[in-house]
């Protein structure tokens, strides 16, 4: 780094680079390098010695196996993408709605906020994984009280709900979607912590003058919501959708993630698991690209 003859701007540029140096080092050592290695692994076969490992090239065999030989991977991938497409709108809707609620002034608001952010603490990592498969919880949530197998209605009454919805004349797929959402409300709530946080702090950024002006013009709360709050928050809907999609695919609850992990560390098939991980990564990226394309067309940017 030359000391002499630097303008103030150049000096500041250098200090900036020094500030982000930890990330640069980490990116090269613990991200880019492993990623390249893993790409190489995915095209090879590995033999492990006590001191290291040896690679031999096999071409696209691992990838071909994933799609054509592996009996479960295709199914798990499709299932995971399908579930994601079902869950993400629910999470966004729920967190948007909750943040608007929590932003209003009422008695006990702090307590409500403390409770709404509890999922951030309570359902992450291992706790979320174990809870989603917990026998008793699932039993209680879907069948009512233990030892009452004859009980047909669920705790949240979605059996009766579906009956009413069908009576109204909704399409059965729609009814199924709604009732399954009601039954999985716990999972949806537990996925929404960070999104509520983002929406809530986004609500703070809306200039109060907008509401003042529209109130003077005689707008109702309902109109305020659709004409001001919703468009002003729409860029953050994009942020939250991206976050939710990523969170959904990266969570250890996800079947594909679990498969990749067990392939590597239980079956000790490291190269095959690297190939699976790459396929997964590419699928996720393409999906994200499509989603971002679709949403960013409808987003409103202020200023």
């Amino acid at each position: 780094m030359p000391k002499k003859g630097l303008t103030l701007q150049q000096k500041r540029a250098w200090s900036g680079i020094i500030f982000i140096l930890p990330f640069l080092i980490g990116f090269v050592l613990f991200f880019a390098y492993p990623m390249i290695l893993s790409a190489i692994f995915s095209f090879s076969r590995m033999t492990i010695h006590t001191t290291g490992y040896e690679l031999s090239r096999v071409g696209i065999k691992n990838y071909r196996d994933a799609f054509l030989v592996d009996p479960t991977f295709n199914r798990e991938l499709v299932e995971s993408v399908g579930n994601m497409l079902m869950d993400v709108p629910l999470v966004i809707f729920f967190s948007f709605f909750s943040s608007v609620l929590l932003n209003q002034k009422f008695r006990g608001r702090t307590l409500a906020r403390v409770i709404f952010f509890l999922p951030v603490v309570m359902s992450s990592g291992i706790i979320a994984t174990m809870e989603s498969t917990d026998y008793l919880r699932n039993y209680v949530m879907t069948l009512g009280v233990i030892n009452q197998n004859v009980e047909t209605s669920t705790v949240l009454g979605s059996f009766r709900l579906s009956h009413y919805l069908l009576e109204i004349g909704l399409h059965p797929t729609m009814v199924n979607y709604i009732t399954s959402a009601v039954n999985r409300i716990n999972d949806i709530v537990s996925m929404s912590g960070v999104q509520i946080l983002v929406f809530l702090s986004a609500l703070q950024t809306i200039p109060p003058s907008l509401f003042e002006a529209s109130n003077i013009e005689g707008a109702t709360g309902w109109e305020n919501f659709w004409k001001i709050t919703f468009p002003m928050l729409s860029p953050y809907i994009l942020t939250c959708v991206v976050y939710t999609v990523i969170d959904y695919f990266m969570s250890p609850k996800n079947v594909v993630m679990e498969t990749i992990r067990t392939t590597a560390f239980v079956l000790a098939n490291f190269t095959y698991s690297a190939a699976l991980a790459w396929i997964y990564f590419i699928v996720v990226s393409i999906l994200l690209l499509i989603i971002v394309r679709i949403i960013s067309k409808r987003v409103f940017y202020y200023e």
Partner: protein
Amino acid sequence: MDNIIRVITVFNKRKADLKEYRWYKILIRYASVGRLKLMAWSIVRAVLIIGISFIILYPLLMKISMFFMDQKDLYDRTVKWIPKNLTLENVKIALEYMNYWHTFMNTVKVVLFTTVLQTISCTLVGYGFARFRFPGRSLLFSLVIFTLLVPPQTIMVPLYMNFRILRLLDTYWPYILTSATCMGIRNGLYIYMIRQFFRQMPKEIEEAAMVDGAGVFKTFYSVMLPSATPVLVTTVLFSIVWQWNDTFYANLFWVKNQVLSSALSALTDNYQQFLRITEGIHEFSPVYRSLLDNVGMLLVIFPLLILYAFAQKYFIESIERSGIVG
């Protein structure tokens, strides 16, 4: 409205029935449409918030109720929340088979190292991205977002292999190295949050500090950093919680040693192993397994809940001021 007023003037003339007169006064005070709407909304809101709160608290309440519950009570139809037979047996088993105190200390150490290092490194990097212009800045920042997009499974095998060859598995070094270089759990998100926060600070503060003779680093830690407390609280809380509950890196970096999360996932299997050897029981009921799991889960998240109880004030406040979406 006119009708009511006429009625009241009638009543004003002959105030014989005071009771009914009062009733109309109340009617006039509350009967305006706006007030009714407001009241109806606040009732609906209260119902919604209490309902959702119940859904959120339900798993926690269930764990607390199971904590001292005897196995018998699970099959008892009359027991719903409050156990009839109290026992510490399950807690003892969970503590023993998770090797609780030892793994607890391990977890505390890991979380302490990672949180401190991640917070420092991500703050530096986020500040660097927010306040300085240098060539390739936006490209490098898109790399930060890129690290969030790539499933950790993609780089899992090479990381594991490299740390194995370096003989660093089962030490604190993998955690220390990755945290110090912003490659821990979701560190891209922290960098993003911190950058958004520093970006909204007015340039004048920086310039004033420079005129007063403060260098770049002095400006950073004595002028800019103190105002960043809200976003740092959020970062610290996230990084503690996510590291505490993480099993992915725990299983990747530590093969023999255990932290609470990995001990918890092995709890029921370990106990079953023990029962198989000593009593020849091959499979115990899924209900009992779930009971043990729930006791173990409460033991694991209990320290986090205490922490959250203390930190919630700053955390909730920080939402309004952190401007993480800037």
